[in-house]
């Protein structure tokens, strides 16, 4: 807390506090759009479960869904900032391709010989190299956009071709297998999950964080004599958050290793196998935890830092931001660099999941990432969007795809449905904006 604010705290604000909010949703202070998206997701899940004969809402499918969503969800958090600033990034799929390829080659050809098999430095340096490269590519795009004045659409369309070609050039189109087992944990799978106990630990920490955040917000507003949320509303929102965390943890812990894998796991770890068989829970997958960490970090960046504030101000009115003395070019460069770094994290997750880097990796990902951000309520006109919404948008997209796979819909028809859903979602969003804004 700064001195300025501390000095003013005791004084009552000159303007009287607002009257108590009248509507139920107003009292809860929840985003109607976010609530609507959760509702839409629930409908999608229930309908698919019905159509696919009860195979959708199983802990196994939901666990897989969470892992499949991770890479797109990570990238969508950056795309929110890009689109909020009235730009677009068509190159993320290709950046994912080239950074994934460079990470795999670097790991196999340089790090493994230098450090030895499964040395901890291998996965760390692989990530450092990949993220640095991604950020550098993004910064280059940002520089051309901000300082040379070439539209983002063109720069990143060029980037889409350039970096896909570069991915091929790195290994002349060969598929490069990953060699480091620690790095492969980023992809999830049986060993890339944290198990039941640690999942409950994370669940507990998340609940503590929710309670702490609620109390702190309330304490801050009390200090400045601001109108407060009704106590029951605080309980409802915090309670809903806690319940969601507990439910998610219960689902991922309910997904257990198949009997054969469990036996092998027990043998390698020297656990005695009881006669009735072992139940070993998967728990949260590592890529899902990475995605959640990225989501929390990006939410923090967008809402709690000057950088995030400036991104939104520039998106709302670039001229006003300029006149306020904000260095809009530098912020543009930083946003694209951040997008590149997130594409590299996405690359780490998706190469680790496939345990190899291929030339075609990430093809069309830019479209899924943009779709996730837009379905998640990011306005293409700029100035509006949330990280949580984009991640939920990624989950919606992946749910549709996964549901159609379970229903054995052919890929071309999947694409037809996805395309129509995207247009439909944006139309609903347009209606929402007209009505509520």
């Amino acid at each position, binding site marked *: *807390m*700064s001195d*300025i*604010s501390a000095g*003013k*705290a005791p*004084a009552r*604000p*000159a*303007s009287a506090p*607002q009257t108590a909010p009248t509507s139920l949703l107003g009292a809860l202070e929840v985003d109607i759009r976010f609530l609507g998206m959760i509702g839409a997701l629930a409908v999608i899940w229930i309908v698919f479960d019905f159509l696919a004969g009860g195979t959708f809402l199983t802990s196994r499918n939901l666990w897989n869904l969470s892992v499949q969503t991770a890479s797109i969800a990570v990238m969508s958090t950056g795309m929110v900032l890009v689109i909020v600033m009235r730009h677009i990034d068509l190159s993320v799929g290709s950046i994912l391709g080239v950074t994934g390829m460079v990470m795999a080659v670097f790991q196999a050809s340089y790090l493994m010989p230098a450090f030895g098999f499964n040395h901890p430095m291998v996965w760390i340096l692989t990530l450092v190299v990949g993220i640095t490269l991604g950020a550098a590519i993004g910064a280059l795009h940002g520089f051309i956009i901000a300082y040379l004045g070439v539209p983002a659409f063109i720069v990143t369309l060029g980037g889409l071709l350039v970096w896909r070609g570069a991915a091929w050039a790195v290994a002349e189109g060969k598929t490069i297998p990953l060699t480091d087992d620690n790095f492969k944990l980023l992809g999830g799978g049986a060993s890339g999950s944290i198990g039941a106990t640690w999942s409950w630990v994370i669940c507990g920490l998340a609940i503590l964080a929710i309670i702490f955040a609620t109390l702190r917000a309330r304490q*801050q*507003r009390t*200090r*400045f004599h*601001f109108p407060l949320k009704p106590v029951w509303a605080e309980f409802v929102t915090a309670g809903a958050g806690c319940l969601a965390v507990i439910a998610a943890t219960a689902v991922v812990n309910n997904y257990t290793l198949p009997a054969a894998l469990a036996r092998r796991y027990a043998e390698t770890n020297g656990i005695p196998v009881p006669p009735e068989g072992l139940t070993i829970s998967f728990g949260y997958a590592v890529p899902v935890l990475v995605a959640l960490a990225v989501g929390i970090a990006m939410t*923090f960046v967008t*809402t*709690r*830092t*000057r950088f995030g*504030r*400036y991104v*939104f*101000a*520039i*998106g*709302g*009115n670039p*001229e*006003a*931001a*300029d*006149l*306020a*003395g*904000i260095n809009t070019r530098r912020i543009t460069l930083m946003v694209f660099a951040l997008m590149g770094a997130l594409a590299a994290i996405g690359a780490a997750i998706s190469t680790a999941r496939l345990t190899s880097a291929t030339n075609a990796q990430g093809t069309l990902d830019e479209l899924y990432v943009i779709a996730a951000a837009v379905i998640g309520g990011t306005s293409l006109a700029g*100035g*509006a969007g949330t990280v949580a919404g984009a991640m939920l948008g990624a989950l919606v997209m992946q749910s549709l795809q996964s549901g159609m796979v379970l229903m054995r819909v052919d890929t071309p028809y999947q694409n037809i449905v996805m395309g129509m859903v995207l247009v439909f979602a944006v139309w609903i969003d347009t209606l929402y904006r007209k009505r509520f*804004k």
Partner: protein
Amino acid sequence: MQHNQTAARSTLPMGASLIAGTPLVEMRDMSIAFGGIRAVDGVSIDLMPGEVVALLGHNGAGKSTLIKILAGAYKADAGEIRINGQPAPISNPRDAKRYGIETIYQSLALADNVDAAANLFLGRELTTAWGTLDDVAMEAATREVMGRLNPNFRKFKEPVRGLSGGQRQSVAIARAIHFNAKILIMDEPTAALGPQETAQVGELVKQLKAEGIGIFLISHDIHDVFDLADRVSVMKNGKLVGTARTSDVTQDEVLGMIILGKAPPGAAPGPGAS
């Protein structure tokens, strides 16, 4: 950098030489061109502490462009700006703010998608000890300053898009006065306002003037100008027609300066006088 005060004084327009002391702002021989069009062409104006100088002229006369140079939004092709007698190189809005120059733009220059507090502190956010945004402190300060300007204002949590014209205007004014401006530029401050709110802005101008703040006022309303301004400077086609004390000229004479570009006997003629 030393400079000769007497020599500097002699180049000033006559209107200023009547007042003793160092001018708060001197803009000398300012010029700026956009693609061959000389939007501002050799204009010199000045401003004393506690003085209101009105800038008048038709649309496209170059008033807004001239003050945007002072505000740092445009960089002049030629000319010199002095603040308190010292050369003040201003090449961006941050420079201008460092010299205590605050601007209320005609367009208001608000980011519509964020709330009043975010706009008020845009570019100068209060932060906590950890470097994060201190939204609560900013909201508290906003409530305080808005309470003085517009006691009925309640929409602190709403994006300013949802505010009325007058409310948006008060946010823009709050932003200019909250940071202890020494020099205030008001570009059509009452354009979006009703009669009552216009009167409030008039009161505010008088109050700020009494605190020793110098104000450049751009307005179309000649009555407002004669009510509030000590001097008027009139521009036409990018050139200065002349500068006059409002007590030395009539409203008709000032209209003549605006429309015909003719400097009356009570005014110091500029290069643009016909």
